[in-house]
């Protein structure tokens, strides 16, 4: 049947060369190349569950009185938006499972993006010609964080209301443009116009997902165009790609990963509670709860807000820069500025402007690895500082003591980590030791195929069958080669 379908298409639009080329696309083998795919599949789950949720969500601030299934909310006044999400959780068949899966998928989506970014950064995969694709990826990280924030802010429960209040203050804190910008976004003074939830909805379910989808398409198309980068090894050069072809090897592997990601997310959605909005209750501007926290991917911003001293810049009786600016706006700007500028910065620092298709192991470039580790430490300290209140409640460590500790530690630790990581990398590079692998560093000998045909299957005992060496730009092999 598949053959008939393919023939149907081939005889009419002549697809078979393209399909043949696609099926023979070679994926280099390394488990860390799958991290981005985890993010991709989490996005697929997000879209699927998100479409379901939009059937039931109502972006309305109109006040209603609850008469649903959840007893503690009986008779309470709330917005229609909040009521619709409580109903998704308690009245819509499978609604809670889908809602929780959606939220877990959002959390895991950003986890996977961060892991993927770590892999790309520490292996030098962002170097020319892949720097453009790296910028696309960093943009998607920023969009994903914003998307998550908008998602849990739409619910209009107590936590989302408090989160929006912080977002409003941060927007207001931008010098000069802050006030008008916040008024523009919210449609007036906090909590904003009655259309505000509709704005969130449009951005959350239309603009950002479409932007993410387009960027993913660009991301993948660029990868196909440039081919995957790969780790150096015998038979692997700057001009070829050694690995598993899409069909029959890699496609099945990738489908397996899709199923695994979906399984983990649905398992979490069914078994572990996330954002129990019925327990937080509806939001009113005069209400608050102790220990309110953002989702994890905004924890570094709440931490930075806590760590920054209340410095303000006044001109006469005009507050030019309020205290929220440093932690809430300047810090994330600095973090993303670093991420965006690193490829160019590294080119300038090393003077290496060549094209690179072979990856480096973290130890191969001690300075880059040390800079990345120091930067990650800096952000991680702010992230940890975001939970100081809960650490105080749970462990009894004095709050102000913690804040002062992280303030100092956050500036010392990156330098210490830089020095330490650089030393470790240099040592590993010198000795070629693999402390995590218990492996001497000997690389299995790969058989070399003849080079005459231009595109040759590599035969060897240790590699998975079907691995191929392809040269970029070469024509696909004749059938049966």
């Amino acid at each position: 049947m598949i053959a008939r379908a393919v023939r149907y298409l081939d005889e009419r639009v002549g697809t078979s060369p393209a399909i043949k080329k696609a099926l023979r696309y070679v994926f280099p083998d390394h488990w860390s190349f799958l991290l981005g795919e985890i993010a991709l599949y989490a996005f697929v789950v997000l879209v699927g569950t998100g479409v379901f949720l939009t059937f039931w969500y109502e972006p309305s601030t109109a006040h209603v009185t609850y008469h649903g299934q959840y007893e503690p909310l009986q008779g309470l006044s709330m917005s229609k938006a909040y009521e619709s999400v409580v109903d998704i959780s308690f009245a819509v068949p499978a609604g809670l499972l889908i809602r929780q899966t959606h939220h877990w998928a959002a959390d895991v989506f950003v986890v996977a993006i961060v892991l993927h970014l770590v892999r790309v950064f520490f292996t030098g995969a962002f170097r020319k010609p892949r720097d453009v694709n790296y910028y696309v990826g960093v943009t998607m990280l920023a969009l994903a964080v914003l998307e998550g924030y908008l998602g849990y802010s739409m619910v209009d429960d107590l936590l989302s209301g408090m989160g929006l209040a912080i977002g409003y203050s941060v927007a207001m804190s931008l010098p000069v443009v802050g006030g008008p910008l916040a008024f523009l976004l919210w449609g007036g003074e906090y909590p904003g116009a009655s259309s505000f939830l509709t704005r969130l909805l449009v951005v959350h379910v239309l603009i950002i997902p479409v932007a993410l989808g387009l960027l993913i398409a660009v991301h993948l198309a660029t990868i196909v165009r440039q081919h995957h980068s790969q780790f150096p090894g015998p038979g692997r050069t700057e001009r070829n790609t050694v690995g598993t072809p899409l069909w029959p090897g890699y496609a099945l592997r990738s489908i397996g990963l899709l199923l695994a990601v979906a399984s983990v997310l649905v398992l979490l959605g069914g078994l572990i509670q996330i954002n129990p909005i019925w327990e937080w209750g509806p939001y009113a501007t005069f209400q608050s709860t102790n220990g309110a926290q953002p989702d994890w991917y905004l924890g570094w911003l709440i931490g930075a807000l806590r760590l920054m001293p209340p410095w303000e810049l006044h001109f006469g009786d005009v507050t030019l820069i309020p205290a929220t600016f440093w932690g809430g706006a300047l810090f994330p700007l600095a973090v993303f500025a670093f991420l965006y500028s690193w490829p160019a910065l590294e080119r300038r620092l090393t003077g290496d402007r060549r094209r690179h298709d072979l990856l480096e192991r973290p130890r191969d470039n001690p300075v880059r690895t040390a800079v990345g580790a120091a930067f990650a430490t800096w952000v991680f300290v702010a992230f940890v500082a975001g939970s100081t209140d809960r650490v105080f409640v749970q462990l009894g460590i004095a709050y102000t003591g913690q804040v002062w500790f992280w303030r100092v530690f956050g500036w010392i630790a990156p330098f210490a980590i830089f020095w330490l990581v650089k030393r470790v990398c240099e040592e590993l590079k010198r000795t070629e030791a693999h402390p995590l692998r218990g492996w001497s560093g000997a690389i299995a000998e790969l058989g070399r195929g003849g080079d005459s045909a231009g595109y040759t299957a590599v035969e060897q005992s240790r590699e998975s069958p079907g691995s191929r060496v392809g040269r970029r730009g070469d024509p696909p092999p004749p059938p049966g080669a």
Partner: protein
Amino acid sequence: MRRLARLWLRRVPWLPRPVRIALALACAAGSLAVVALDASRAPAQAPRPGPAPAAGTRIDPGLVPEGRALFVDGCSSCHGFDARGIPGVGPSLFDVPPGNADFYLRTGRMPLDYQRDEPERGRPAYGAREISALVSYVASLGPPGARIPRADPARGELGEGFDLFTEHCAGCHQVVGQGGLTIGARVPDLQSSEPTDIAEAVRMGPYLMPAFPESQISQSQLDSIARYVLYTRDPQDAGGWGLGHIGPIPEGMVAWLLAGSALLLVARLIGERTTS
């Protein structure tokens, strides 16, 4: 079951092993999700608490001499031998409502080890009869007829209690009564608070907490708040493991440590390394 799994993983050669593992995981996930969904569909009925337990502490003028003896022994080093207080050390107990003394003694917050400490819930230092004696003594220092505040959760409305708790209490005690942080104090969680503790604390305002007299929170509203606080011990949960009801911090840990490491493991199993 185990044989089935082994058969599936070993004897189905026409599917690659990673796909087989993933399919098995997907099946397990699906069935567990159905079970979880079923659990989350449990009837939305919060258990109605029974009547408040008979009040433990009684004010009995006959116990005053015994109470005074206990007071001199255990409390006078801060509050003074005549209970008029010691300036800079401990306050006078004259005209202190008996509910205050009962709250501090019964929840183990008094006597303090160090006078600068924040009084925190602990094992009571005295038995029920001794507490009655001490409270009777404190009551004898104030106007006659003072009573210990009470709350009856059985007469309260859960929804009203939730609403009032969010408005008056959640800012410090956290909306599910898990406690929190405020300037200068650790806010206690309310997971072991009894109705009488709640009533006494609301009326008195222990330590940094403000007092709420009857003009702000009526007796029936107090009953509702007590009902909600007791409800938070075992809230009507849905959606699986509640992670302590303290919000996104444990959720982030699950996302990273559980889901993140599980997916890393899958990636490690599926994505092979041809260099090794």
